[in-house]
């Protein structure tokens, strides 16, 4: 369990934006994951997408890591941002764009 925590911790700190999802942005396996991936794809940034269906340990571990029972989960700069509802809400009110602005500049 500790190993998984470390693995997830390394992942979310290694990349500016990490999305844990079911499936991939190209082939999402769940409507909620699809929605968040589509939102992320609408920004001109690169993000790391982790398909939890390929790794049962990560699939369970990520729930403990964030103390959050559902997937998808979005992390920006190592910080847990939320799941589908929260990311959608933040996208609708422009908060997400603000949060991702530094990442856009960095990738240009």
């Amino acid at each position, binding site marked *: 369990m500790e190993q998984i925590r470390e693995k997830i911790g390394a992942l979310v700190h290694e990349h500016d934006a990490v999305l844990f999802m*079911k499936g991939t942005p190209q082939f999402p396996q769940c409507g909620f994951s699809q929605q968040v991936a589509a939102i992320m794809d609408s920004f001109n940034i690169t993000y790391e997408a982790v398909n939890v*269906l390929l790794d049962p340990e990560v699939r369970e571990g990520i729930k403990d890591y964030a103390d959050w029972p559902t997937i998808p989960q979005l992390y920006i700069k190592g910080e847990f941002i*939320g799941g589908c509802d929260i990311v959608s809400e*933040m996208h609708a009110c422009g908060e997400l764009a603000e949060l991702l602005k530094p990442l856009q500049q960095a990738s240009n």
Partner: protein
Amino acid sequence: MSTRSGHIRNILQQKLKPQTIEITDDSARHAGHAGARESGGGHFSIDIVSGDFAGLTRIQRHRMVYEALKDEFGPMIHALSIQAMSPEEGNSE
């Protein structure tokens, strides 16, 4: 309203003392997709306004709802859509 929605509503009414609460059973829209089949649980949308949410972040509010329903995940609940507002925010809409 389905029995499961009623059950979820009862729990949230007891634990979060909402001013208003609306539960929609979206299970039919998700029937048959991979996760839904595994757990047997349903998809529900929860629209809840409670004074307990005032001053809390979105993450904290959602955690309160998840915490209240943690024993129902699995056979009862597969996934939730949550909109959690304080009475002030709820009235401004």
